[in-house]
């Protein structure tokens, strides 16, 4: 029981850090440019497809991961220059509709190129198998790598924003964009960089998670909506909030579907297992609703 419990905790952490990679880009783009981007899930999908395609072509897993980052960043950059840039000064409705249109274009475009059948990304030998953790817990090595990679990226993002010149500009852009433009920062280049950075993170997580699932059209949107829940919980524009929110959502979802059905059986009898499963599937939304009741602008959100 306790071994299984720790295993599920690790799974929750793994889901959480991967959600963070998605949520970080969304929250940065919103914080700096004030843009709500529904097509962020498409970048996740593009990363996964680029990885699956490269892996099949070259056989190298590392090249595949690299391809996912590059492809998503390049597509993100092109997308920003051609379309997203025109949306910064428009209302939220236009942003929602234009990025919804982009989802349609990216999804159908991918289906045209790769067809409707899912692709698969397989792990190289050095990442597969499982390891024995202290306490005799056997755990999939790759999932452990995901947790490590996610934490390293989170740390890197923290250092980038708090310790570099670019990070300083990003922070300044969040609080007053006219002023930093007046101070001579090329604001449109900054916006393109921030958007491409967010895109690269989304593509990266798409490829990493694509190994655990199949790579297919439409894989991005469920993750996008989870990332929205993360941002609503954490507070829009806050990287710290996105991290805390992501871990909270990852843990709640994993531990909920692990514990609640059994808990229901224990409390209400064997017939309640099914009700427990349903409640578990709704748990993160219930969590979001509770947080909205007390903190309508999220845990770390300043302005609404």
């Amino acid at each position, binding site marked *: 029981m306790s071994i299984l419990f720790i295993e599920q905790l690790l799974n929750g952490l793994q889901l959480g850090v991967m959600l963070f990679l998605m949520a970080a880009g969304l929250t940065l783009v919103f914080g700096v440019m004030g843009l709500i981007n529904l097509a962020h899930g498409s970048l996740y999908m593009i990363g996964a497809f680029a990885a699956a395609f490269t892996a099949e072509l070259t056989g190298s897993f590392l090249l595949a991961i690299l391809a996912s980052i590059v492809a998503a960043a390049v597509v993100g950059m092109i997308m920003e220059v051609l379309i997203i840039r025109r949306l910064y000064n428009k209302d939220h409705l236009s942003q929602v509709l234009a990025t919804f249109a982009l989802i349609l274009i990216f999804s159908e475009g991918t289906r045209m190129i790769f067809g409707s059948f899912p692709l698969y990304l397989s792990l190289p030998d050095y990442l597969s198998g499982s390891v024995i953790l202290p306490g005799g817990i056997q755990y999939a090595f790759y999932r452990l790598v995901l947790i490590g990679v996610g934490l390293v990226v989170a740390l890197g993002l923290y250092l980038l924003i708090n310790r570099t010149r670019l990070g300083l500009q990003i922070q300044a852009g969040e609080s007053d964009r006219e002023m930093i433009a007046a101070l001579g920062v090329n604001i449109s280049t900054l916006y393109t960089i921030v958007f491409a950075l967010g895109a690269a993170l989304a593509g990266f997580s798409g490829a990493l998670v694509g190994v655990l699932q199949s790579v297919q059209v439409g894989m991005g949107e469920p993750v996008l909506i989870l990332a929205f829940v993360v941002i609503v919980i954490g507070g829009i524009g806050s990287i710290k909030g996105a991290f805390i929110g992501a871990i909270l959502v990852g843990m709640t979802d994993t531990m909920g579907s692990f514990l609640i059905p059994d808990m229901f059986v224990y409390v209400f009898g064997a017939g309640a297992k099914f009700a427990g499963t349903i409640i578990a599937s709704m748990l993160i*939304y219930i969590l979001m609703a509770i947080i909205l009741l007390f903190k309508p602008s999220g845990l770390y959100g300043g302005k609404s």
Partner: protein
Amino acid sequence: MIASKYLNAGVFIVIPFVAILAYFSDEPFLITLTTKAVIFAIAGIGLNIALGYGGLISLGHAVFFGLGGYAMGILASHAQSNVPIYDGLFLIEGTKSMIIIWLVAMLVSGLFALLIGLLSLRTSGVYFIMVTLAFGEMFYYFSISWPAYGGEDGLLIYVRNNFSGLNTLDPIQFFSITFSLLAITLLFTYFLKNSFFGLVLNAIRQTPDRVETVGINLFKSRLIAFVISGMITGLAGALFADLNRFVSPTMFSWQTSGEIMVFIILGGVGRLFGPVVGACLFILLEYLLDGVSEFWHIYLGLILLFVVLIAKNGVIGSLSRRETSND
């Protein structure tokens, strides 16, 4: 440039004209297509009350569309199998009566709109968009994981429900029912828009601070608009399920929410006939483009992008004078 009231009248006449033409040239499929456009128009009119008049960008209206659909599915499936829905302290039986189904669909949608509104209207701006989207996803997963009514596979109803004296399985008769409901919905929305409440809503969207200063409760007004909006979209959901004689979790999906929003933007946001024109255009595009390529959504995406970036006022706005004050 055409005055928008002539454009509206034109659209209102063309829809039944197409259906009648299809009836006499024996094209039942075309009647069904027109009926679908009419039902989508009603769903869009519902969302337009929250979005166009109230300025509430709800990306979760699939919840109400789906609830309406499942209200129909659950009531009709119990009537079909002759098993009561609830048999305890009192008895609740299924029904095949359209009128009762519509009322239940609107009641249930209104109730959940109240609940979702109470929570999500505490937020505004992008938060509201994300929260409504998230609640939509919650209902989607709920409908998938609840096996009692078909789960992921959905629920098939063998015979269309009854409406006194009409043969509802005859396409033109079912069309007449939906078109009458569209007319009633339009009339209701027209009066709502020009009522005191409609003016308040309009004012709240444009300058919320001033309205609050006058002593009007913003939250309550928005909540009422959201509930009315949800009820109308719920009615459309029940009709849509009846048209297909089928309900499935797809009705709850985020794509459905997005599509209902697309009807509005194609026609024109905040205009009475915007969703009607948009829904007709959507069906027309689906019909025409589907013949050109199986990937018709890519063209829909491009058209949508064009409308958002260039023709901001939708079809009605581009064809008529800018006489509505809905900027």
